[in-house]
């Protein structure tokens, strides 16, 4: 069980202050729905939590520590799918990680997201929606404690959205946490919410 603590966080892009004085706490099993108009800094907040952006002020601690004590995963606007590799290869070697998934795990994840038959298709032939499903499969394999999902619903059909909800519920039940930006309601029990 871990805890994410954010105190007095503010972020700046060039000379513009995007948001300031954001504070919240999130423990394992809970999720935070980040809402706000376009350009309010939702993506920047997620990238700050992921450790990509340095905050202008404030601190982010994970279970009381500053460093990457917990495994985080960020799903951004880009699918991070290599066109040259097949769906299966994308999950296995697409992003070098510290614990590569086995072939069986990859096949199981692909079947779960409905890409079981497309495992050996080069990713350039996958549709946008299929790529988003591939991202969901990767989310499952990365076994992270904290999911940072930036508009995960984009590009998914209604089945896909249900699938995302299912995964999210499982993740929370296993003691994981999530910070999600989305303009649409998600098929998950209402969590905390933060308006930027």
């Amino acid at each position: 069980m871990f805890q994410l603590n954010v105190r007095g966080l503010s972020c700046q892009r060039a000379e513009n202050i995007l948001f300031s004085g954001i504070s919240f706490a999130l423990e394992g099993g809970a999720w935070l729905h980040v809402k706000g108009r376009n350009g309010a800094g939702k993506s920047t907040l997620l990238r700050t939590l992921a450790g990509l952006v340095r905050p202008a002020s404030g601190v982010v601690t994970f279970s009381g520590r500053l460093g990457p004590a917990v495994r985080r995963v960020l799903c951004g606007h880009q699918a991070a799918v290599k066109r040259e590799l097949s769906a299966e290869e994308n999950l296995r070697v697409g992003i070098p990680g510290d614990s590569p998934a086995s072939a069986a795990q990859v096949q199981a994840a692909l079947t779960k997201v409905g890409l079981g038959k497309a495992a050996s298709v080069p990713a350039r032939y996958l549709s946008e929606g299929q790529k988003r499903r591939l991202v969901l499969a990767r989310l499952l394999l990365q076994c992270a404690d904290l999911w940072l999902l930036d508009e995960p619903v984009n590009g998914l059909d209604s089945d896909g959205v249900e699938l995302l909800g299912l995964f999210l519920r499982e993740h929370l039940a296993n003691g994981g946490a999530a910070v999600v930006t989305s303009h649409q309601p998600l098929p998950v029990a209402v969590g905390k919410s933060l308006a930027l």
Partner: protein
Amino acid sequence: MSIFSLTLRRDLLLVIREPAQGMAVLAFFVMAASLFPIGVGPESALLRRIAPGIIWVAALLAVLLGLPRLFEADFLDGTLEQMVVGPVSLGLLVLGKIVAHWLSTGVPIVLLSPLLAIQFSLDRDSLLVMVGSLLPGTLLLSLIGAIGSALTLGLRNSGVLVTVLVLPLYVPVLVFGAGALEADLAGMDAAAHLYLLVALLALALFFAPWVTAAALRIALE
């Protein structure tokens, strides 16, 4: 398996899937060097004298031309961001990428260089020195180039900019690399040049991946 070898295998797999880009760099290397005899005339004594400089400058420019491939594709499709967020040592990952880049750009250049040696009528002993200087030299060029490539990532004029940043830093590599071949052609011992080249390589192997990793973090912020 370590993150270094995982990254190395991944990048080599990507190169094998789309070999056309790597081929273009090699073609550039041979073509650029072949232009000089056409420009200065076919006199073999003159060509032999300027061969070290030409082969080395051509190799240097070819590596420079291949630099955008190092991070750009991963940057554009978002995989680079995932690598930076991931729980792995970014320095080792970067080293894996650089070595993969060297294996797919630098080493083929070295393998092709004997062809140019024949064009410039170098003898067999000099050929050995040429390969011996190009092999560590091209890795050194890739290591230094990676820093510039990371610093200019995603900028509008990154192609020209990386050249302006990196070329002055390439001067010592050119001096020792071409110098080794030149010393050999002049009948002197090339060992001192090669040792210095390898010393620089050791220094760059130690520092360049971490500097590049820092530059990538800055570029992605």
